[in-house]
């Protein structure tokens, strides 16, 4: 095993890790060695081809289909330079006071989070797309909402020079979407922070990491790592973990921290989501233009949020219920399809958690509560009404049985769409907003860290990612992840002098 040394190790390069990397430029400028270790590869711009199967395999963990232990929910999260920000849609929302106050994390205020979110939104070029860049798929959602007496809100998005490729979730082929791969990491590198890709942190010991650096496989996209392949022992007086909700929890668990931190892995939430489609008489612009311009927030009233979306043929096929001729007919009307993503605002629930198997690989346990099933059914009903109000001829709703609703059934939606049609293992359901596992709080009995990402009892170990959420956020999370990571980075800067001088051990 080779040895290396740095002053600060950041594990993961997504929304959290990228933010910390940029915020720690002052340390690098002072001559401190700050390294980001990212297990995924770093692709050249030309390697973003927009081809569904090859991009999913290159950019996501398990090609975007990481299955929960129950095998009833698939999770999408990035495994690449930029983490999930390389594949996100870039919708940029600030959290609500209601949710942050309900989190009740001592020392964390809504006001502080909002001001940090706003700073990061400006850094990412967040703005509203002008009306002429909004496609029919989005326009019809807004019109449909108005048709049923509800007002959709426009998503601010973080694109610069968006050409409307509609491929955001496969990595933007135009470099227009502002993920950490485009903004924070390049800035950090210019400021002297090193980024080592294909470097998976296997274990964290006492201020020491065990890292495995891999070569690219045959035909695999992305450059080789800056470090030669092999096992490394890296000394790091400050360790910032930002491997994402699943990655960070799994890393700390396989490092043996579970007994000192009984809440580790607990409190996992993910906004489980269903895809609905409405079929129009004529072709609409759907697979061109930014895919996500509007949303309808019903989190307070009915515990769901609807968002516009547009997926690719394989993902779409997988998410429609059933198979055979009816399914094929729906797929063949692709150019006439309008799509809506229905997300449930789930709650941290006992049993929904992250663990590791004997080899240290993450396992996610997730059961759908009756509240989540009801929220999804209400979301299906609202989406169906929106489609019909927007002029759709037929609607495919996963929680209708049978799933196809004809226009003349519009008046019977309440009876046709019910939570009883939700059948785990049959209903295709997925999630991309993974949260929790290393939640913030006040002590090890209720949490893993304090509100500044300091792991209880281990002053040199910090968390800076979506795993910090003590409960679900009920909106798209990346800006809040950046705001929390920013707080973690602030605390690191504040404590750096002491931690980099003092080598006393915190681990037993």
């Amino acid at each position, binding site marked *: 095993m080779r040895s290396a040394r740095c002053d600060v190790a950041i594990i993961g390069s997504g929304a959290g890790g990228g933010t910390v990397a940029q915020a720690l430029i002052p340390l690098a400028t002072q001559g401190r060695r700050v390294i980001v270790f990212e297990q995924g590869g770093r692709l050249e711009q030309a390697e*973003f081809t*927009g*081809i*569904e*199967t090859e991009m999913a*395999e290159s950019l996501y963990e*398990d*090609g975007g*289909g990481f299955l929960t232990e*129950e*095998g*009833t929910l698939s999770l999408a999260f990035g495994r690449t330079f930029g983490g999930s920000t390389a594949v996100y849609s870039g919708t940029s929302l600030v959290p609500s006071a209601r949710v942050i106050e309900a989190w009740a994390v001592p020392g964390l205020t809504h006001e502080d989070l909002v001001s940090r979110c706003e700073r990061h939104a400006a850094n990412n070029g967040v703005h509203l797309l*002008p009306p*002429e*860049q909004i*496609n*029919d798929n989005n326009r019809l959602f807004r019109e449909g909402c108005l048709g049923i007496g509800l007002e959709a809100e426009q998503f601010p998005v973080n694109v610069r020079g*968006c*050409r*409307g*490729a*509609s*491929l955001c979730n496969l990595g933007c*082929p*135009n470099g227009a979407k502002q993920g950490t791969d485009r903004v924070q990491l390049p800035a950090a590198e210019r400021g002297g922070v090193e980024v080592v890709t294909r470097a998976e942190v296997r274990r964290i010991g006492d201020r020491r990491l065990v890292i495995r650096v891999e070569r690219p496989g045959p035909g695999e996209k992305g450059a080789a790592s800056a470090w030669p392949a092999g096992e490394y022992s890296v000394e790091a007086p400050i360790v910032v973990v930002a491997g994402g909700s699943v990655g960070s929890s799994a890393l700390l668990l396989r490092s043996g921290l579970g007994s000192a931190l009984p809440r580790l892995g607990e409190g996992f939430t993910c906004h489980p989501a269903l895809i609905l489609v409405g079929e129009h008489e*004529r*072709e*609409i*612009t*759907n*697979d*061109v*233009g930014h895919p996500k311009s509007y949303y309808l927030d019903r989190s307070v009233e009915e515990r769901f949020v609807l968002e516009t979306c547009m997926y*690719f*043929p*394989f993902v*779409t*096929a*997988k998410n429609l219920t*059933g*198979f*055979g*001729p009816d*399914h*094929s007919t729906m*797929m*063949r009307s*692709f*150019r*006439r399809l309008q799509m809506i993503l229905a997300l449930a605002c789930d709650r941290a629930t006992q049993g929904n958690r992250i663990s590791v198997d004997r080899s240290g690989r993450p396992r996610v346990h997730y059961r759908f509560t009756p509240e989540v099933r009801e929220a999804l059914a209400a979301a299906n009903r609202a989406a169906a009404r929106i489609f019909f109000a927007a002029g759709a001829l037929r609607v495919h709703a996963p929680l209708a049985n049978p799933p196809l609703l004809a226009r003349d059934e519009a008046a019977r939606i309440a009876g046709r769409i019910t939570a009883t049609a939700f*059948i*785990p*293992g*049959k209903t*295709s359901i997925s999630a991309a907003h993974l949260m929790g596992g290393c939640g913030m709080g006040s002590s090890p009995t209720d949490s893993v860290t304090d509100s500044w990402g300091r792991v209880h009892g281990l002053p040199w170990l910090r968390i800076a990612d979506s795993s910090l959420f003590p409960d679900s956020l009920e909106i798209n999370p990346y800006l809040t992840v950046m705001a929390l990571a920013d707080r973690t980075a602030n605390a690191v800067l504040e404590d750096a002098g002491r931690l980099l001088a003092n080598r006393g051990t915190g681990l037993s």
Partner: protein
Amino acid sequence: MLGRVRRPFRALVVGFVPESADLSADEWRRGEELAERLLSGRPGRVRRQVTLLILALNLIAAARFGRTLPALDPSTRSRLLTSLQDSPLLLVRRGVWGLRTLAFLVYYGREQGRAAVGYRASASGWASRRSPGTGAGEGREP
């Protein structure tokens, strides 16, 4: 890996996506490569389960209808898959869901499958829809 169960696997793919019956030998090869790639990234346990499941479905077809999957007529095959998809056993439902996912990958994961449904997203985005007289839904580029 699918080589050992190729005939029943293809019969299942056709059951899930009827138009895959018309795929050429080359298109089948390309689609199966995609499925193999997906499976190669999964633990060995999962790969073995997929093979066993395909063999089990073949046996169930033989026991229930006196014919293996490839010899079943399309409507009987469809009835069988529907009944398994609605099984009270989670394990069975999950298995059918997994095979269905592979079938969709074989068909819609290929370039021709994407083209067959009219999917056109490309890096040039709005600019690629500028050709004159392109019909409904194409005239709104900025």
